[in-house]
């Protein structure tokens, strides 16, 4: 049902409602005549919003005003959220099932070590970091070289075995685990650094290198990785590239895209594409590496990455600050951009709910501003080359902001240890959310001035049923909206979705700022991308992966792929 709706919505938005009404008419009528109003996106306006309909935002269903009301219950609605109900796709039967011959073939090319069949290990690999998505794969392959990846894919493609590329399995949208029985291709064993050029700062390494190891390798060489995030101890560079991960630090080069100077990728049919060119400038033909950055394993498996790394700057300063309200946070940001200029390297915010959660659930953390509670906390980091000059600049900016009343309070890290403990608070939020129970995660790009309105509206909608926690990179309008509940619960979910996507689309925001679409949001792409764009994406997918074996059911709506010719029963 969802597929049909999504597909309709993309191909011909004007007929979606009519089609739904036609197909599901009986379900909606229970003594009343109800009509369905599909959510508006910024590309197509639905009938909701036209006069004569109650604008019941977020319900996915609208009711003509002429409808009689049931005493005391408001409107009676029987089938809610038709247009954006979250449902699991069905297994694509054109994919083969693994058999003994497959396994012995894989053992022949990878050796015993590279073929994982043990239930325990498979259980981990089938389950995502949030323990929210779980597949039932019976086989994990661990190649050690590009050549092995190529052989695996060549074979899987000819056998029509679906695969899911996996790195550190820290992805947050269900992209890194199988949906059904897809073969897991885990690149963790490909973890060599291949070369580092001390003059150009270009690092070439294999996809399975753990981010934190690269960070410390570069630190030793006097360079920095243009990416740092909370999952660094587990996530891998291939996964970071494939999700186009964004970072806490690094203000302008936020998405790590600008740092990637080349890739080696294996296509679905086993072809190895060497795009590792380590030139800074190269404009010969299409820059194809961009296709794979952020493609979430749906177009190819990244096997090697070359990254342009900047030299380490010696002077890093970090302040942990408190603001009274969201407006002050925003004013502080624009002032910081103006007064700190090029040395401003991070501007992160968390609200009081996020702060309380971290302090409650993580051990060994200490509130840097214990004397009072504040509604908002901000981290400002500067990075430069002139220690005392930078510090003085930051200090005088902060003191001035305090005098202007933008800041309630604040502390300035005096050594690296203090700085890490401030960062630990911000970076520990996802972990604290996990410990607190179930969590619905939304990673949105929104105009910064509107960003927090969504959080407040969400709190109003959910009342005491859930804890709405907000944090993010205020510097570039990226809100991490997290709804923490005791356990996953459809009635809460229906209050959140599609409301959150509609709201975002109305603000011309993005429903995935940095986590990607994965399984969770594959069918939501139309909230952020026009029909033409999605069609082109589907055509590219079909060109590169005609059998659709790479990470099926993810990123793009399955309906549109089957429509444009990728096999489906």
């Amino acid at each position, binding site marked *: 049902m969802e597929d049909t709706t999504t597909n309709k919505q993309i191909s011909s938005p004007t007929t979606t409602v009519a089609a739904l009404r036609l197909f599901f008419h009986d379900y909606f009528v229970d003594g009343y005549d109800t009509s369905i109003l599909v959510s508006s996106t910024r590309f197509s306006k639905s009938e909701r919003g036209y006069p004569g309909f109650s604008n019941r935002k977020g319900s996915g269903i609208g009711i003509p005003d002429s409808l009689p009301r049931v005493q005391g219950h408001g409107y009676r609605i029987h089938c809610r959220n038709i247009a954006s109900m979250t449902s699991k796709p069905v297994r694509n039967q054109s994919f083969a099932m693994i058999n003994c011959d497959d396994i012995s073939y894989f053992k022949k090319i990878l050796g015993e070590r590279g073929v994982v069949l043990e239930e325990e290990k498979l259980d981990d690999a089938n389950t995502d970091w949030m323990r929210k998505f779980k597949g039932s794969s019976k086989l994990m392959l661990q190649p050690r070289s590009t050549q092995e990846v190529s052989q695996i894919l060549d074979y899987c493609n000819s056998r029509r075995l679906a695969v899911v590329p996996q790195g550190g399995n820290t992805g947050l949208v269900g992209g890194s685990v199988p949906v059904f029985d897809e073969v897991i291709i885990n690149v963790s064993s490909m973890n060599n650094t291949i070369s580092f050029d001390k003059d150009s700062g270009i690092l070439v390494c294999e996809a399975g290198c753990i981010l934190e190891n690269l960070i410390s390798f570069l630190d030793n060489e006097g360079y920095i990785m243009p990416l740092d995030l909370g999952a660094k101890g587990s996530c891998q560079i291939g996964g970071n590239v494939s999700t186009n991960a964004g970072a806490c630090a690094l203000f302008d080069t936020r998405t790590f895209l600008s740092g990637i100077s080349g890739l080696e990728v294996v296509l679905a049919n086993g072809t190895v594409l060497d795009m590792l060119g380590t030139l800074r400038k190269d404009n010969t033909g299409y820059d194809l590496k961009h296709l794979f950055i952020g493609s979430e394993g749906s177009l190819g498996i990244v096997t090697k990455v070359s990254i342009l790394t900047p030299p380490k700057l*010696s002077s890093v300063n970090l302040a942990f600050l408190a603001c009274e309200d969201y407006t002050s946070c925003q004013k502080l940001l624009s002032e910081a951009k103006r007064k700190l200029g090029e040395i401003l390297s991070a501007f992160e915010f968390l609200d009081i709910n996020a702060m309380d959660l971290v302090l409650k659930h993580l051990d060994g953390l200490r509130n840097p501003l214990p004397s009072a509670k504040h509604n908002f906390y901000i981290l400002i980091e500067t990075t430069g080359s002139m220690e005392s000059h930078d510090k003085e600049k930051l200090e005088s900016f*902060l003191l001035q902001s*305090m005098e202007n009343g933008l800041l309630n309070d604040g502390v*300035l890290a005096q050594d*690296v*240890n*203090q700085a890490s403990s401030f960062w630990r608070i911000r970076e520990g939020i996802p972990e604290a959310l996990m410990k607190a129970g179930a969590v619905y995660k939304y990673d949105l790009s929104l105009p910064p001035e509107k960003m927090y309105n969504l959080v407040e509206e969400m709190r109003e909608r959910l009342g005491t049923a859930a804890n709405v926690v907000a944090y993010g990179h205020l510097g570039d309008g990226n809100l991490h909206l997290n709804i923490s509940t005791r356990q996953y619960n459809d009635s809460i979910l229906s209050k959140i979705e599609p409301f959150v996507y509609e709201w975002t689309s109305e603000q011309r925001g993005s429903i995935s700022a940095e986590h990607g679409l994965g399984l969770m949001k594959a069918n939501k792409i139309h909230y952020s991308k026009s029909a033409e764009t999605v069609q082109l994406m589907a055509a590219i997918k079909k060109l590169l992966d005609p059998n659709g074996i790479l990470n099926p059911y993810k990123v793009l709506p399955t309906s549109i792929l089957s429509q444009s010719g990728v096999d489906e029963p």
Partner: protein
Amino acid sequence: MKIMVAIKRVIDYAVKIRVKPDKSGVETSNVKMSMNPFCEIALEEALRIKESGRASEVVAVSVGPSQCVDTLRTGLAMGADRAIHVEFPGTLYPLSIAKIFKALVDAEKPGLLLLGKQAIDDDCNQTGQMVAGLLKWPQGTFASKVVLDEENKVVTVDREVDGGLETLCLDLPAVITTDLRLNQPRYATLPNIMKAKSKVIKKLTPQDLKVEIKSDLEVIQVTEPPKRKAGVILSSVDELIDRLKNEARVI
């Protein structure tokens, strides 16, 4: 009563130390420097004593090159009332520092001298003991708890010793060196950073204090610890036993 606290500027605790190629010492240029963590604890303790009303003034002192002023600013931002910088650009060893402190104590007359138990760069663990000797004051080293009794002019100090605690009672004035578990130092808040801007840092030289800097020891060389070999992952218990038997020859 006045409390004097010694503060040393060292390579930041979190920085990876690199030995200079000529083995004459460790690389300090372009390296993040911060307050020695044990000195931070000493300062925190002094501030707590003052806040509890048992002391009237906290004076932070640092001996070393001109950049020590930055470290003293941190001390002032934490809450010290004023600071003294004894400027000396060259290498200093504990005995010289102890003599400088003796001279400063003679001039300032504090009731308590607090120092970190050791500095994390040279790990000497000598200055507190030497200055107590020069002053002929009682000393409580490795303090994990300090209780001041002003009326009776004594201070009780808990020391962490192997397998237990030792509690001492010292007559004031006294020297105390601080251990890790004594307290958790505060952060420098913006209001305190602001206040610190108007606090005074007095500059002196060893000559001003009539201390001659000389040393009867010489560092011959500094070397890195031997590199650990990377571990290997073995595929089975049998392989492990085989390696332990035939390669490592331990079983």
